[in-house]
């Protein structure tokens, strides 16, 4: 057997699970370092009729990278930045899929990039980039150990997606190897569907022909199922396809100039409804690039972890009377504008029933890091609680929702969540991207029975959120864990249309088994 193919006994347990805390099984694994390795892995899978699960940083929360038997294809070793271009006033960075977000940010901000092996043209662009205004990559999922390939596969977003949009808008091109070894190379603006009919050319001169699903996607933040719209750019189908259509082996990332003034401010409220009112007042403010939320349950868990003297001991004290925090990040052309916009937000907080006294403002990098640490500490501290529960009941997984609704449904969806949580009587923590009405409702079940009740409640929420014009998965992707929600959102006919797309790319149903939908009809 090829040295590249590792057998089950040599696969570390960590490759059988992801951040969703669900686990799978695998017979083989390939740690690819090149496109040739990817092709070797796919050939081996074909010869042995094995399903293939593609992995990046395994930081996904929907189980897309959890293997369902067969072969694991890990791309974390394909971690080089391979070139740079300058087009239409923007820098385009070429990256392999295994590049970790944290490393990407570091290399962009310090401009310490290994350019060995780059073309002369790329090196010339890099010289310009080196002395030019500082750039950044806007997509900012909370988990910075995510890989760019994974982020593209699930169309990741993050706090700043409120203003900058999700990953999709920042990928200018990509290379994908299909299950049969053919290569698709696509750049934004070069290959469109005709109505819903699509034909995607491969490098060998052949093509993949298919019909796009006929559903109308909700007009909200959405990472649920295949992207589909009449006359769409076909690159948008490949982004967010959850590892089901092909293996992404190269990305072209569009960088943006870093704004002169990046400020953050947390607004503390004694009542949740005041926080929601504030969000509705603020969301049209153009300088605000993110609007994040932390509810009373999340703050209580944070207080407990802080008191326990954990890594969070240095977090600022949140007074007991505070029930909600809204964090806003401002990007402005200069500090004068930032100050003007900040004071405007202060006035809106007072109007919503808050106080300018109850705010934390960060106007330099160090202070911003402090507020970021707070933001990251919220999910981390809840995960620590879940891990503690898992010690007693190993079958438990992270139970968090990822749904979004239109702006005018914010109060309604919060009522839905609150009523559901109250009925279950379980501990909860709500946080997330409230600017997009996209909240993660996390429940802390202590038994398998509780977990089943939570899942049932999430299914009922999926139906209600769909009725509100929302999406069942706004950013995590559907993966395996939310496949049943996708069926609720789109219905069996549209799921069948998605299956037809999948079959056109991957007739043997080799890739991403169990992601989005099952092979045959019926929900997995």
């Amino acid at each position, binding site marked *: 057997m090829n040295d590249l193919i590792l057998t089950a006994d040599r696969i570390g347990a960590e490759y059988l699970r992801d951040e969703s805390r669900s686990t799978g099984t695998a017979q083989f694994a390939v740690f690819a370092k090149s496109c040739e390795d990817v092709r070797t892995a796919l050939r081996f899978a074909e010869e042995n009729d094995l399903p293939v699960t593609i992995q990046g940083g395994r930081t996904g929360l929907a189980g897309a990278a959890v293997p369902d038997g067969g072969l694991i294809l890990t791309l974390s070793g394909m971690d080089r930045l391979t070139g740079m271009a300058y087009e239409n006033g923007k820098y385009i960075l070429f990256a392999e899929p295994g590049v970790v977000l944290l490393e990407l940010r570091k290399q962009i*901000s*310090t*401009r310490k990039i290994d350019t060995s092996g780059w073309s002369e043209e790329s090196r010339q662009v890099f*010289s310009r980039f*080196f*002395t030019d*205004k*500082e750039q950044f990559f806007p997509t900012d999922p909370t988990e910075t150990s995510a890989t760019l390939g994974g982020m593209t596969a699930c169309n990741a977003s993050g706090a700043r997606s409120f203003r900058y949009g999700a990953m999709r808008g920042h990928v200018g091109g990509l290379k994908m190897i299909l299950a049969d070894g053919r290569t698709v190379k696509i750049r934004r603006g070069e290959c469109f569907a005709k109505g819903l009919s699509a034909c995607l050319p491969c490098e060998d001169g052949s093509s993949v022909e298919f019909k796009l699903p006929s559903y109308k996607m909700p007009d909200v933040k959405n990472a649920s199922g295949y992207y589909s719209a009449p006359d769409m750019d076909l690159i948008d189908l490949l982004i967010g396809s959850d590892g089901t259509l092909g293996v992404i082996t190269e990305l072209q990332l569009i960088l943006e100039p870093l704004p002169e003034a990046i400020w953050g*401010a947390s607004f503390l409220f004694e009542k949740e409804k005041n926080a929601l009112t504030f969000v509705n007042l603020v969301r049209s403010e153009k300088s605000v690039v993110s609007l994040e939320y932390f509810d009373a349950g999340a703050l209580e868990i944070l207080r407990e972890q802080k008191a326990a003297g954990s890594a969070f001991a*240095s977090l*600022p004290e949140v007074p007991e009377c505070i029930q909600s925090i809204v964090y806003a990040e401002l990007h402005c052309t200069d500090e004068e504008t930032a*100050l003007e916009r*900040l*004071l405007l*937000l*202060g006035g809106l*907080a007072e109007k919503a029933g808050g*106080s*300018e*006294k*109850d*705010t*934390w*403002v*960060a*106007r*330099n*990098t*160090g*202070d911003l890091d*402090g*507020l970021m640490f707070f933001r990251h500490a919220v999910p981390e501290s809840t995960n620590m609680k879940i891990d503690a529960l898992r010690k007693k009941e190993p079958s438990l997984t992270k139970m968090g929702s990822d749904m979004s609704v239109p702006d005018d449904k914010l109060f309604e969806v919060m009522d839905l969540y609150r009523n559901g949580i109250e009925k279950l009587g379980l501990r909860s923590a709500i946080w997330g991207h409230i600017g997009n009405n996209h909240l993660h409702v996390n429940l802390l079940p202590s038994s398998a029975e509780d977990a089943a009740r939570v899942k049932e409640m999430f299914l009922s929420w999926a139906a209600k959120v769909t009725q509100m014009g929302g999406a069942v998965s706004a950013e995590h992707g559907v993966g395996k864990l939310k496949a049943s929600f996708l069926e609720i959102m789109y219905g069996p006919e549209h799921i069948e249309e998605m299956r037809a797309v999948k079959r056109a790319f991957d007739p043997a149903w080799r890739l991403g088994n169990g992601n989005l939908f099952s092979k045959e009809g019926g929900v997995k």
Partner: protein
Amino acid sequence: MKIIVCVKQVPSSNEVRLDPVRKTIIRDSSEAVINPFDVTAAEAAVQIREKLGGTVTALSMGIPASERLLRDEIARGADNAVLLTDRAFAGADTLATSYTLSKAIEDLGGADLILCGKMATDGDTAQIGPELASWLNLPCVTDVSALLEVTEKQIICRRNTDAGAETVNVSLPAVLTIVKNLTTPRLPSIEGIRRSLKADLKILDAKGLGADPARIGLDGSPTQVIRTFPQQEKGEAVPFEKSEAASEVKKLWEEL
């Protein structure tokens, strides 16, 4: 209690980038911030005032643009601020700087307590606090890591030493230098920022201070920086495959 906190503007990062062609330092991305040790000292001052009453004055010697950072200290809780700015102060070493600061403190009528950060992140000298105490003829406790008891008359504090820590009882007035983890500094509120925008900020030049021209700026500095340059990176990692290891190592050995 009347408290004066000495603060200094420093670059936010120690990361430097060299222009690949000119081989000069590119300074564009380095924002100015208050020395983090001083921010902690200022927070300690505000906490003492919240307990005992009084005033906190932030004092800095720097370029006119430092006014922005002094207003930031007011937003974080200081009552007022004084900026010492004059071309004549330029090129000052720690001796000239501490002399200038001491003149300002005298001008302000002295203080019950003077707090400084242990050191600044750009110079790393840790000399200002002790020198200031010397000019003002006050006791000085350096490297203070905890304030155990603070009254109008005295402070009992813990300080870091090379051997560990010691508890010190110091009578006021005194100068204390504060380590960064003594407390977690608060962030300013929007209310504080509004207050800072309206606050009167006193600006003094060399003449206004009545400073001896021979003791300030470059003329008053027995030490001078001749040249600054980033440390050259010496190490280099050379990756090679296991099968080639022996021959590659041999090649490297020969090159060295």
